[in-house]
C-alpha cells in the first residue's frame, strides 16, 4: 500500500498538480488562459467519452446495465445522507446544505481519469466501459439536491426558476452533454472509428491530463485562501465524506459484480465531488446558495485529497474486500 501510495505521489499527474499549487502559493504570475482550461476540459471529456463508447460497443449493454443502475442509485443516495449532516451537524442554511450535497453526490471526471491512470500504472485491470458509470452518475445527485433545496428554502425574491430549465441544465450541461454525446458517438463508430481518431484521443491522453492537472493545481491553489470562509466543519467534511462515500462505492461495486478495479472506480466516483456540472446546475436552480462553500470544498479540499490519498485508499479497500 505505501509503495502504491508513493508511486501515486510520484506520478506525473500528481506532481504537476503539486507544481500548480506551488505556483499559486508562491504567487508566481503563471496562469493558464481561460480558453486553454476550456479546451483541455473539452478534449478530456470527449476523449474519455469516445473511448468509453467504443468499449461499450464491444462489451454490449448487457454487462453495463446493472452497475449503471447501481451508480445512479448511489448518486441519488449520497445527498440524502450528506444533507442532514451538513444541515444539522454543520448548521448550514438549508439551501447551502442541499447545494453541497448535490456536489458530493455528483462526480468529477478528472478524478476518475486520475484513478484509471493509477490502475494502469499499477497494472490492475478494470472494466473499460466503466466510463459509462461516470456518465450516468453526474445528474442524479444534482436533481435530488435541487429538490431538497427547493423544499427546504423559500426563495429570497424574484420569480422562481422554471423547473424545465433546471432539468435541462442537469441533463444537457456542458460536461454531461459532452461525455454522454461522445459516448454515443464512440458506441456508434466502434473500433473502426477508434482507428481513425485514436492517435488524437488516446495516444497523447495521459500527457494532456498531466498538463491539465498543472492547471487544476493553480486553480485549486488560488482558492486556498477561500478556505477561511468555509469554516472547519466543511474542511473536515471535505475529507471524511469522500472517505465514507468511497468505501460505500467500493462495496456497492463489489456487490453488483464489478472486478476489484471496477469497484475501485465506482468508489472513486462516489468519493469525488463535482466542480463542473454541479456548480452550473445548482447555481441555476438554487441561486440563493453560496457558491463559495460548495465550490471551494469540492475544488480545494476534496479534489486534492482524492488525487493524493483517496485513490490509493479506494484501491486498497477494493483489493481487501475482494480478496
Amino acid at each position, binding site marked *: 500500500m505505501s509503495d502504491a501510495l508513493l508511486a501515486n505521489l510520484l506520478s506525473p499527474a500528481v506532481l504537476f498538480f503539486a507544481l500548480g499549487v506551488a505556483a499559486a502559493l508562491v504567487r508566481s504570475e503563471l496562469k493558464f488562459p481561460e480558453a486553454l482550461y476550456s479546451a483541455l476540459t473539452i478534449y478530456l471529456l470527449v476523449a474519455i467519452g469516445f473511448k468509453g463508447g467504443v468499449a461499450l460497443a464491444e462489451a454490449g449493454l448487457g454487462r453495463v446495465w446493472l452497475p449503471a443502475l447501481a451508480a445512479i442509485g448511489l448518486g441519488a443516495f449520497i445527498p440524502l445522507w450528506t444533507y442532514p449532516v451538513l444541515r444539522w451537524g454543520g448548521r448550514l442554511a438549508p439551501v447551502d446544505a442541499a447545494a453541497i450535497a448535490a456536489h458530493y453526490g455528483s462526480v468529477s471526471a478528472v478524478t476518475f481519469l486520475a484513478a484509471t491512470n493509477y490502475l494502469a500504472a499499477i497494472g490492475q485491470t478494470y472494466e473499460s466501459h466503466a466510463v459509462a458509470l461516470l456518465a450516468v452518475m453526474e445528474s442524479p445527485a444534482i436533481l435530488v439536491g435541487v429538490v431538497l433545496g427547493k423544499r427546504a428554502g423559500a426563495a*429570497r*425574491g*424574484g420569480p422562481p426558476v422554471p423547473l424545465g430549465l433546471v432539468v435541462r441544465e442537469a441533463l444537457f450541461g456542458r460536461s454531461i452533454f459532452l461525455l454522454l454525446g461522445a459516448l454515443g458517438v464512440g458506441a456508434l463508430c466502434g473500433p473502426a472509428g477508434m482507428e481513425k481518431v485514436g492517435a488524437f484521443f488516446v495516444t497523447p491522453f495521459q500527457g494532456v491530463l498531466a498538463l491539465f492537472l498543472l492547471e487544476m493545481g493553480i486553480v485549486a491553489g488560488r482558492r486556498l485562501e477561500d478556505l477561511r470562509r468555509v469554516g472547519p466543519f466543511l474542511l473536515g467534511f471535505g475529507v471524511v465524506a469522500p472517505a465514507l462515500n468511497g468505501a460505500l462505492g467500493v462495496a456497492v461495486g463489489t456487490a453488483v459484480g464489478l472486478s476489484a478495479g471496477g469497484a475501485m472506480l465506482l468508489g472513486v466516483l462516489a468519493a469525488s465531488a463535482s466542480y*463542473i456540472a454541479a456548480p*452550473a446546475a445548482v*447555481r441555476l436552480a438554487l*441561486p*440563493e446558495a453560496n457558491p*463559495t462553500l460548495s465550490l471551494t470544498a469540492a475544488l480545494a479540499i476534496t479534489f486534492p485529497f482524492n488525487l493524493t490519498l483517496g485513490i490509493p485508499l479506494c484501491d486498497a479497500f477494493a483489493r481487501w474486500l475482494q480478496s
Partner: protein
Amino acid sequence: MNLHPMKLVTIVCEAYAADAVLRLLAEVGASGHTSFPVEGSGARGRRLADIPEYANTQFEVIVRPELATLLLQRLGAELFPRYAMVAFESDVRVLRADKF
C-alpha cells in the same frame, strides 16, 4: 448631426446570471445589448476569470430613459437578491436615436 440623449445601463454579474439578464432585457424591450467577459472583486469575493465557474460578464445596454428606470427596478427586485452583481446607469448621447 444630431445626438440624442439616452441612458447607458451597465450590469456586471457572475456569468451564471447571464441568461437571466438576457431574459429580463428581452422582457423590458431593450433593442440590443453588448456583453463581454470580465473579472473582478466585490462583496461576494474575488471572481478570478480562470475557470468558467468563476467568470463574470459585463452587459452594456443603451435604452430610452424611461426604460432604464424600469430595467434597474426589475434588476434590483428580481436578480440582485440572488446573484453577485452591480448595476448603474449613466448619460450618453447616441448617433441615430431611431435604433433604440
